[in-house]
C-alpha cells in the first residue's frame, strides 16, 4: 500500500509534464542559426529558376535556396499563399504573385516589404513601364513586387496532326491560315473533317480567356472591371465578343472539352488528343512538362489569331513575415534582373518583362528545340514591348472563375449559349459582392 501513492504521484507528475510538453510544443519557433541563411521561394507552374539558384548560391556561399511549388497550378497556390499571409507565418521569403491576384494583394500592402525602401526605385528602367506600375500600390508609395515575366500570346500546334489532316505544317504558312478567329474556326472545321482522332483545341475556357484578354487589350484596356473598379462583365463589349467567338468554336465542335489543368487535360497532351492550344509564353514550359519528351519536335508555334495580347505574368514579392528580408530582397532583385529573366526564359520560356532582356541577343535569337526549333524569342518577344496590358479589378479571380465556368457548362452541353451568358453575368455579380 505504501508504494501505491508514490506511484500515483509519479503518474500525476507525468500527466502534468505531458500537458506542459504539449503546450510547449505549440510555441516552438525556428530561430535563425549561425549557419547559412535558407531562403524559401514560393512559385507555381514553371518559373525556370533552378539554374539561377545554383548560380546565386555559388556566388553567395552564405545562402541556401529552397523552392516550393513548381508544377502546382495557381488555384492550389494562391489560397495557400493567402493563408500564410493571413496567419503571419508559413510564407516563403520570396513569393510569386500572378497578375490576376496582384490587385487583391495590393489592397493589403502591409503584408509585404516596401521594395522602394530598399533601393528598388533605381531598377525602374529595368522593367516595361506598365509592368513596373502594376507592382505599385494605388497611391504609388509602395512597391509590392518586381516583375518577372509577361505573357505574350501565340498559338502552339501539333505538326504531326496538321500533316495527318492535310494542313500546312510550316509555321509561317500556319500563321497565314488564321489571321482572325473566324479563320481559326474555319481551319478547325477542315481539321475536324479530316477525322484524325484528335480535337482541334484542348478546351474552351483557355481559348476564351485568350480572346478576352486580346480583345480587351486592343480596345478598352480592361476586362471584367473598368479602371474605376466597377464590375462591367455585362456591359463591356470585349467580354461579350470573346464569349460569342468562344460559342462559335464550341458550336463547330472543335473543342476536346478537356478541363484546363485537370488530369484529363494532362492525359490529352500525352495521348495527342488535340492539335492546337492558345499559348502564352509561359505555356510552352507547361506543354513540355505535360506532353513529355515523347512529343519533342512534334510541336511548333505560330502567330495567334487576332492581334497579339497578354495573358499572365507575375511579380516577386517579399512578405513582411520573412526573417531574412535583406537577403530575400537581394535574391528577388537578382531573379528579376535582365540576366535572371533571360535565364528563366531559356529554361522554361516565361517571356521577360525587362526591355533590356527583350533586346538581348540571347532572347531575340532564342529558339526552342522542343518546339521544332521555333524562334520563340522572335515570336513572343517582338510584340512584347508594345503589349497593351489589361486592367484587373479587385475580385478578378473570383469573377473569372464564374464566367469561365459558364463557358464550361455550354461546352459540356449542360447549358445553351444564352443560358450560359445569363449564368455568367448573375454568378459574376454574386461573386464580386462576396
Amino acid at each position: 500500500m505504501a508504494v501505491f501513492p508514490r506511484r500515483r504521484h509519479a503518474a500525476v507528475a507525468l500527466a502534468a509534464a505531458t500537458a506542459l510538453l504539449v503546450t510547449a510544443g505549440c510555441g516552438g519557433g525556428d530561430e535563425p542559426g549561425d549557419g547559412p541563411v535558407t531562403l524559401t521561394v514560393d512559385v507555381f507552374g514553371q518559373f525556370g529558376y533552378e539554374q539561377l539558384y545554383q548560380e546565386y548560391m555559388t556566388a553567395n556561399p552564405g545562402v541556401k535556396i529552397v523552392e516550393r511549388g513548381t508544377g502546382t497550378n495557381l488555384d492550389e497556390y494562391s489560397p495557400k499563399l493567402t493563408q500564410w499571409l493571413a496567419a503571419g507565418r508559413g510564407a516563403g521569403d520570396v513569393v510569386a504573385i500572378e497578375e490576376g491576384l496582384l490587385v487583391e494583394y495590393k489592397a493589403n500592402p502591409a503584408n509585404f516589404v516596401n521594395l522602394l525602401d530598399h533601393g528598388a526605385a533605381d531598377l525602374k528602367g529595368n522593367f516595361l513601364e506598365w509592368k513596373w506600375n502594376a507592382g505599385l500600390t494605388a497611391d504609388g508609395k509602395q512597391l509590392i513586387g518586381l516583375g518577372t515575366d509577361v505573357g505574350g500570346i501565340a498559338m502552339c500546334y501539333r505538326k504531326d496532326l496538321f500533316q495527318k489532316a492535310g494542313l500546312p505544317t510550316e509555321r509561317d504558312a500556319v500563321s497565314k491560315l488564321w489571321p482572325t478567329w473566324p479563320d481559326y474556326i474555319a481551319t478547325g472545321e477542315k481539321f475536324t473533317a479530316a477525322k484524325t482522332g484528335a480535337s482541334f483545341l484542348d478546351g474552351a475556357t483557355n481559348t476564351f480567356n485568350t480572346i478576352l484578354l486580346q480583345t480587351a487589350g486592343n480596345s478598352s484596356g480592361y476586362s471584367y472591371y473598368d479602371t474605376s473598379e466597377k464590375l462591367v462583365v455585362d456591359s463591356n463589349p470585349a467580354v461579350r465578343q470573346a464569349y460569342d467567338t468562344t460559342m462559335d468554336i464550341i458550336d463547330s465542335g472543335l473543342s476536346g472539352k478537356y478541363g484546363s489543368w485537370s488530369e484529363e487535360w494532362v492525359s490529352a497532351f500525352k495521348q495527342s488528343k488535340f492539335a492546337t492550344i492558345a499559348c502564352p509564353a509561359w505555356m510552352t514550359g507547361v506543354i513540355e512538362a505535360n506532353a513529355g519528351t515523347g512529343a519533342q519536335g512534334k510541336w511548333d508555334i505560330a502567330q495567334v489569331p487576332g492581334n497579339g495580347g497578354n495573358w499572365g505574368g507575375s511579380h516577386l514579392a517579399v512578405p513582411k513575415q520573412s526573417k531574412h528580408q535583406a537577403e530575400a530582397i537581394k535574391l528577388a532583385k537578382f531573379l528579376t534582373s535582365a540576366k535572371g529573366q533571360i535565364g528563366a526564359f531559356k529554361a522554361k520560356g516565361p517571356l521577360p518583362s525587362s526591355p533590356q532582356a527583350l533586346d538581348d541577343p540571347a532572347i531575340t535569337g532564342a529558339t526552342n528545340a522542343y518546339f521544332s526549333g521555333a524562334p520563340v524569342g522572335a515570336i513572343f518577344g517582338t510584340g512584347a514591348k508594345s503589349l497593351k496590358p489589361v486592367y484587373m479589378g479587385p475580385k478578378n479571380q473570383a469573377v473569372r472563375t464564374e464566367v469561365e465556368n459558364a463557358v464550361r457548362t455550354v461546352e459540356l452541353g449542360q447549358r445553351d449559349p444564352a443560358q450560359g451568358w445569363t449564368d455568367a453575368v448573375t454568378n459574376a455579380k454574386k461573386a464580386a459582392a462576396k
Partner: protein
Amino acid sequence: MTVQLDARPPVAPAPQRSPGRLSRLDTRLSPYLYIAPFFLIFGIFGAYPLAYTFWVSLHDWDLLGADHPFVGAENYTRLLADADFWHALVNTLGIFVISTVPQLLAALWLANLLNRGLRARTGWRMAILVPNVTSTAAVAIVFGVLFGREFGMINWVLDLVGLDAIQWKSNRFASWVAISAMVDWRWTGYNALILLAAMQAIPRDLYEAAAIDGANRARQFWSVTVPLLKPTIIFCAIIATIGGLQLFTEPRMFHSGTNPIRGGPLRESQTLTMYMFENAFAPHYNFGYGSAVAWLLFALIAIVAAVNVLLLRRLGGVDRPQKGAAR
C-alpha cells in the same frame, strides 16, 4: 526536459511529512489532473476554435484585410438566402443517403458471410479492412481517374458492353454515385467488422431454438440477427452521419483542374465543407461568410445527431434481448 520535470504539481513533494492531508488532497485532485490533458487539448483545439469561428462569423472578415467590421447576423441572413448554400446542402445529404444505405446493407451482408465457417477466416476479416487503411487522397485521385470522362476505365467498360459514356463529373446524380462508391469502398469493411463483432455476441441457442422452430437461414437472419444488431447498426449509422456530413476529401480530390473546390461546373458534387472552404479561402477569402457556413453545418450535424439519438433510444431499447424474451 528538465524544465518540464521541475514543473511538478503541488501534490507531489515529500509524501512522508504529512501523509494524511496529502493523500486526501491526492484523492480529491488527482482525478482532475489525470483528465486535464484531454480538456486542455480540447480547449485549445476544440472549444477555442469553435468560439472564435462564431466570433468571426459575426464580422465582415476579409482574410487579408486589416479591418474586420462587425456586421451581426448579416452573414447568416445572406447565407440562408444563398441558393448555392442550399444546393450544397442537398448534395451533401444526397451523397450521404446514397452512400450510407448501400454501405450498411453491404456491411451487414459481409458480416453475415464472415460469421460463417469460412476457410482462412482471419485472412478474410483482415482483407475487408484493407481499404480503410489506404490514404483518402490517394483513393480519391485513383477513383477520379477511373471515373474520367474520356480516359476513365469505367466509361471504357461501359463502351465495351455497348452503353453510352456517363459524364461522371458533370452530371449531378452520376457524380454523387461516383463519390458514394469511393466512400463505400473505404468504409464498408470497417462497418462489417463492427457488425461482425456484435453478431458474435448473439447467443447461439437463439439460433438453435429458431432452427428447431423450423426457421431457415434467411429467416434466422432477418428475425434473429438483424433485430439484435439494431443498436450496433444505429451506432454505425451515427458514425456514417458524422463522416458523411463532413465529406470533403473525396469530392474535392475527385475533381481536378481549375477551381476543383466548386465540385463541377454547376457545383454538381460540391458538399457543404467544400462550400465553406470556397468562401473562407479561394477565391473569395471571405472568412466571416465561411465561418457562418461552418456554424450552420455544426447546427445541422447537431440536429441529425439528435434525431439519431432519438432513434437509438427507441429502436435500441425495445429490442434488447431481455425484453424480447419477456414479450
